[in-house]
């Protein structure tokens, strides 16, 4: 019903605040969340709900994530703030061996509805330990769902859904999207596992997620000027992911280009490309970062940064190498 214009950070705060109002088992824990979090994605929540529900914690990533698991087992629904995905690496046992395994390993006795927020991606001039996109690590991990919102709408929609489910959710906002403004329709509850088709073209299918969606869209606009019509699909969630939409559109265009910011080697783009090729015989290509740590100097960082030009070049190559789409 209500339609508002919000930033990506405000949309997140709205989703958590609404969940805390309707469900008193929802709590937030993490470093500096009381002041709203370093990206202001928890702004106003401690004032509204108190320090006992928006809990400032020590810099103890293992225990932030591990106590999230214990809280969930004992009946709470914790939102665990890990600041950036690079720091979540200090809590890998708690995420991989504990949160993700608990339900299966203990025979379904318990549920771990914990939302693990760990923003991914470049964050201007933050260098190698604050710039990584590690979503493929978690897509590879049975027992968790993986969400990568690209817009304020989806940060509201997916976070709201994450706070209603019974799974551990690896929730991957992008560090450079916090200020992005956009419309948020409160009634839009497109489920996890369903992609959004942002534009439809006949020449190729572009699939992306997180901040790279905006790069893919810009590339599609440039291509349109050249007379090349591309579909752009925002996957939104990597597990589960919308194979049907990707396969159907790739079968129609005959060409699939997966676009992501993460390192291309063994990235989730490989999974998308291989699945589509296997199911519809389309031609596939990928664009991602080279396999290097992100450098500090602007000239070095730029090598890892995904730009529309790079996507346009990859699309042109795909079209040149496969001039006639094979339809199936």
């Amino acid at each position, binding site marked *: 019903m209500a339609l508002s214009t919000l930033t990506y950070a405000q949309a997140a705060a709205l989703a958590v605040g609404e969940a805390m109002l309707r469900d008193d088992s929802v709590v937030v824990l993490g470093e500096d969340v009381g002041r709203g979090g370093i990206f202001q994605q928890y702004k106003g929540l401690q004032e509204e709900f108190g320090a006992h529900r928006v809990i400032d914690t020590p810099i103890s990533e293992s*225990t932030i994530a*591990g106590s999230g*698991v214990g809280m969930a087992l004992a*009946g*709470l629904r914790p939102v665990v703030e890990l600041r950036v995905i690079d720091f979540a690496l200090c809590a890998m*046992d708690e995420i991989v061996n*504990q949160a993700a395994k608990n339900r299966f390993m*203990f025979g379904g006795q318990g549920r771990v509805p914990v939302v693990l927020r760990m923003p991914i991606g470049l964050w201007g001039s933050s260098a190698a330990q604050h710039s990584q996109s590690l979503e493929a690590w978690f897509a590879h991990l*049975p027992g968790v769902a993986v969400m990568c919102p690209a817009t304020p709408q989806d940060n509201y929609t997916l976070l709201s859904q994450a706070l209603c489910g019974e799974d551990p959710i690896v929730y991957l906002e992008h560090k450079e999207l916090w200020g992005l403004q956009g419309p948020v329709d409160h009634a839009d509850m497109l489920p*996890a596992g369903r992609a959004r088709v942002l534009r439809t073209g006949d020449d190729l299918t572009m699939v992306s997620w997180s901040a790279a969606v905006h790069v893919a869209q810009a590339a599609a606009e440039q291509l349109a000027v050249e007379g090349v019509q591309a579909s752009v699909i925002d996957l939104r969630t990597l597990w589960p992911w919308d194979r049907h939409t990707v396969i159907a559109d790739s079968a129609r265009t005959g060409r699939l280009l997966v676009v992501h910011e993460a390192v291309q080697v063994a990235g989730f783009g490989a999974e998308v490309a291989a699945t589509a090729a296997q199911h519809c015989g389309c031609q596939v290509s990928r664009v991602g970062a080279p396999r290097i740590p992100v450098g500090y100097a602007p000239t070095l960082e730029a090598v890892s940064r995904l730009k529309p030009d790079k996507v346009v070049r990859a699309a042109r190559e795909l079209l040149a190498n496969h001039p006639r789409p094979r339809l199936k």
Partner: protein
Amino acid sequence: MTADLVNLYRTMVRIRAFELAAEQASAGGVAVWGQSADPRTKVRGPLHVSIGQEAVAAGVCARLQREDLLTSSHRGHGHTLAKGASMQRMMAELFGRSDGCNGGRGGSMHIADFSVGMLGANGVVAAGLPIACGAAHALKLRGQPHIVACFFGDGAVNRGPFLEALNWACVYQLPLLFVCEDNRWSATSRTDTLTAGPGVVARAQALGVAGFAVDGNDVQAVSELARRLVAEVRGGHGPRLLHAVTWRVRGHLSADQQGYRAPEDIAAATETDPISRTRQHLLHTGTPQQDLAAIEEQVANEVRNALAFAEASPLPHAHQAFNEVQTLGAGTWH
């Protein structure tokens, strides 16, 4: 008082009998030192038994209520039994059968019975400490009168989560009893050769958690200290640490022949056996021998029944491998 000690004795005897039966059923079941596992073995894979350490589980768990929660280490059969889990379903779990408490998905290292508040053994050293903090935090936030007991070994105090969890529990004044079950061995290494400083109690004190050491092979001493500390924790006075010094009698795994250990070290472990000590004490203070013999007979029957129950239960069907993984994105994706 004697009735209480008889109950502690019964719990220890149950744990010992369970461990011995599991050990027997696991012979040949793990591939080590050039030998491959025997596929006919009932209990397969790594089995960590707590023979000689029963007084810690019995003494602490006797002071817990059913609604209290518990986390454990990889050596967790004793804690699970003492917390009230069914021996039949535990044995079936070790056998990997569908009637096991985890439906055969976990085995020895992940034994758990949430229905009695036992939130799981753990294959990762010190991994239970942060989970225990969260469970205790939840109890406190929900205003429930229960506490969490968190068992871990002496090796765990050298992992980061130990420091994090004790600091955390103290900062938030959580209803949490840390129990360091110190069997002096970190797998195949003496823990004291790898641990700096004056020990776990001093580390706890430095983090603001009052800690107390006790002879972990004296079940009365353990249970009396646990009674006091559980009361303080339950009374809202924040976390406490109980350091129970015991001995590991068997190897790290049941298949471990302990060639690295001096004979006198093993002898010392056996001489202080908590069960024979308690038995002697009960006989000296007037408990009739036939009462103890009756307990031992009951326990032997219980173990026989557990073995028969486990044997009769089917292995889980392969399709169970796809169940209870997750809800979103569940299914047979490859």
